[in-house]
């Protein structure tokens, strides 16, 4: 149903020539006066819209402000909506299809300015004898606002080193991009085809090879799609273990570093979340890839990252309550939902205080030194003859050994859990599972893709179960404590206390459900095919016909295995 917009790239400064040439063809035209606009391309820090194949455009023109969603694959027509103020969180956008689309791509993250541009725009309409528009041509020139770079960080070199630089004509000093959009109109496609033929035959203009929005994005200081908190290390099985560990830890350090400012300023909750996940992964790597760093270095940074994990905890807890608040309310009978509002107010009231402490910690000398010292350790050249025990071993052998050890630990701990086991035992099992998961993700590239992906999936099912059990228990506990404090401070009336009580009961019910589901979930994890899968992956042998069933890569010998059975 969508008639595709045709995009052409013009030589910068070639707009006037195009307009003059159009006037010579003999078409009946209506040319509107050029209008100035300010355009900002928006995206989340982790490029949610870009990765969904789209750009989000905020356009200020006169006293109007519009938000649009442009599908770069050309499958869907653009969505547009007037907005009253600069957009922040997708959840605060006015209701409608645009909000739904942005929410799906960007989620809980804040929309940030990826690039800001000054735009000159003029529309020329092709008319018929009734002065009806038959095709629309929009000529636009984009220049990075402020003359270079974009957004809040001017980085002129980056802006000009990417796509748009090709758009400069000879002798053009300013970076910019001139384009023509030919908009076919429903029911009048033949007219647009005629214009396209003229552009091609008379002006030798061919449609742009890739969406021009990508070139415009290139004016921004951050490379589009350049950040992800997901792990994707490419390791060589023969790589020295210390070099592989450094590679993994450096990647995690990058993630920590790049999220500090956003977490300090609380731009959105995910900066802190990503920082914490990278910290937890760092700590797991430090304990689970042992003997690759000098022991005193290992011990020192274990302690310093434990500090980081601890100081970032309180705000994250509050974030979780706020992010889940609507779900909490929806879990109660409709009449009780509003009674929870004082709880939200209570959480928000404490948020500022905790965020202040967090900002202080992240801006402290301890933090600056932690990042600086850690980078120094990781970037120091790998000594050829390294003292730590595992440093010079090929990583594949060490990975097999450590993973197999964790698999057996998870099995052992899980099998020891009975109906009467204390919650702490499930918590310990969850911690082991998380370590196993992180390790599998670090070392993913050393194993056949399909097999390691199935193993991670299997483990994830178990982790989800353990996670719900633990998180629901912790939340129920904290909410009870909050209710007690709110009551003591006179911040909660009976209605609110009853609503919190109902919420706690619901959380505990769900926790019980997770607890009862544990044995079946664990049985799934240790079932024969799962067992064989983990053995095949990390312990070299396949007692079943699994090798034939899964795509394989040349296997490297598991190396010296310490049998702990």
């Amino acid at each position, binding site marked *: *149903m969508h008639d595709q917009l045709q995009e052409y790239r013009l030589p910068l400064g070639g707009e006037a020539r195009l307009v003059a040439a159009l006037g010579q063809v003999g078409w009946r035209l209506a040319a509107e006066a050029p209008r100035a606009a300010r355009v900002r391309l928006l995206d989340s820090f982790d490029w949610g819209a870009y990765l969904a194949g789209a750009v989000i455009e905020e356009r200020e023109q006169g006293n109007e402000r519009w938000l649009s969603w442009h599908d770069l694959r050309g499958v869907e*027509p653009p969505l*547009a909506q007037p907005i009253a103020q600069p957009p922040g969180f997708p959840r605060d956008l006015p209701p*409608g299809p645009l909000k739904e689309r942005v929410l799906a791509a960007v989620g809980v993250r804040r929309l940030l300015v990826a690039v800001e541009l000054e735009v000159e725009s003029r529309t020329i309409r092709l008319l018929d004898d009734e002065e009806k528009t038959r095709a629309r041509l929009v000529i636009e020139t984009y220049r990075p606002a402020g003359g270079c770079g974009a957004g809040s960080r001017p980085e002129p070199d980056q802006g000009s080193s990417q796509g748009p630089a090709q758009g400069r004509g000879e002798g053009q000093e300013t970076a910019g991009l001139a384009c023509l959009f030919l908009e076919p109109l429903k029911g009048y496609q033949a007219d647009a085809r005629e214009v396209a033929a003229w552009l091609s035959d008379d002006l030798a203009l061919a449609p742009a090879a890739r969406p021009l929005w990508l070139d415009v994005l290139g004016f921004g200081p951050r490379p589009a799609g350049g950040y992800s908190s997901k792990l994707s290390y490419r390791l060589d099985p023969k790589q020295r273990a210390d070099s592989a560990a450094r590679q993994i830890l450096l990647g995690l350090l990058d993630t920590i570093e790049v999220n500090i400012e956003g977490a300090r300023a609380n731009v959105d909750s995910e900066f802190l979340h990503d920082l914490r996940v990278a910290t937890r992964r760092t700590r797991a790597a430090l304990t689970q890839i042992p003997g690759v760093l000098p022991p005193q270095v290992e011990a020192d940074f274990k302690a310093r990252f434990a500090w980081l994990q601890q100081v970032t905890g309180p705000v994250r807890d509050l974030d979780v309550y706020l992010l889940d608040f609507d779900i909490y309310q929806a879990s109660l009978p409709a009449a009780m939902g509003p009674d929870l509002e004082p709880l939200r107010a209570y959480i928000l009231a404490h948020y500022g205080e905790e965020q202040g402490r967090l900002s202080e910690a992240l801006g402290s000398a301890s933090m600056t030194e932690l990042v600086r010292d850690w980078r120094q350790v990781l970037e120091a050249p790998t000594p050829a003859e390294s003292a730590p025990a595992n440093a010079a071993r090929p990583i594949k052998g060490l990975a097999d050994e450590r993973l197999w050890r964790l698999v057996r630990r998870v099995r052992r701990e899980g099998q020891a859990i009975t109906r009467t086991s204390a919650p702490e035992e499930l918590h310990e099992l969850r911690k082991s599972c998380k370590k196993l998961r992180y390790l599998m993700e670090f070392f993913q590239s050393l194993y056949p893709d399909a097999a390691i992906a199935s193993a991670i999936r299997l483990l994830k099912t178990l982790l989800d179960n353990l996670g719900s059990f633990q998180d629901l228990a912790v939340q129920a506990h904290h909410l009870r404590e909050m209710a007690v404090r709110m009551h003591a401070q006179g911040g909660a009336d009976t209605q609110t206390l009853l609503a919190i009580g109902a919420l706690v009961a619901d959380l505990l019910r769900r926790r019980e459900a997770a607890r009862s589901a544990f044995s079946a979930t664990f049985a799934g994890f240790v079932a024969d095919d799962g067992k064989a899968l983990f053995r095949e992956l990390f312990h070299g042998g396949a007692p079943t016909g699994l090798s034939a069933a899964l795509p394989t890569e040349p296997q490297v010998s598991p190396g010296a295995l310490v049998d702990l059975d």
Partner: protein
Amino acid sequence: MKVLGIYSIKGGVGKTAAAVNLAYLAAVGGNRTLLWDLDPQAAATYCLRVKPKVKGGGKSLARGRGDLDDLVKATDFQRLDLLPGALSLRNLDVLLDDAKRPTKQLLRLLRPLSEAYDIVFLDCPPSLSLLSENVFRAVDLLLVPTVPTALSARALDQLAGFLDRHQMASDLRVLPFFSMVNPALPTQAGAMERVRASHPHTLSTAIPLAAEVEYMGIHRLPLPAYAPACPAAAAYRALWAEVQGDLMRGPRAG
């Protein structure tokens, strides 16, 4: 997709002006909007400068041949498309009668468009016919322009009676609004009071009788596009805001 019918049993009450202006305002507000000109006089089509032609005419429409989407024409305004009216639609009633489930044909035709549009306006011809019944079954909201005269009030009562008799009164939301209001006429105030008393859902915005509205046929543009500052344009904006508010609230209880 929401479907809004602009309907009145009576002619000459400002249906087309309302349909064109409200559809324009919906599109300006960011909604992907379709205006379907169901009137064989094709006045809405004329106002938007589209040629009054429907490929295959009413026959292929009523028989479900071809795709409604193929008949759609873009207007001069972004996000506003038109399904043109044409003289060839004048016998749509008779043709609908031949179809299976003759009162649900419009609903069937509109269904495939639900992904492409947020709002569809139906500019209906003045009558109480099989086509009207199709409209009643297809819309989420029926807007009834009502000139404050005794005869218009009577037409509203006739509509209410018809919907009652055909068990449609509970499913269909009918929102009358005053149209072509002339404060100089002493009879109008009383008529408005009577209509409000018997039709409590009557919208509060009233569209004034104004020469600017009549000029739509000369400019061949929606009123807010050529005279955005005039009181009548402001009234249409207020009316659209009121209708949107009602659409957002969802079905009214009772």
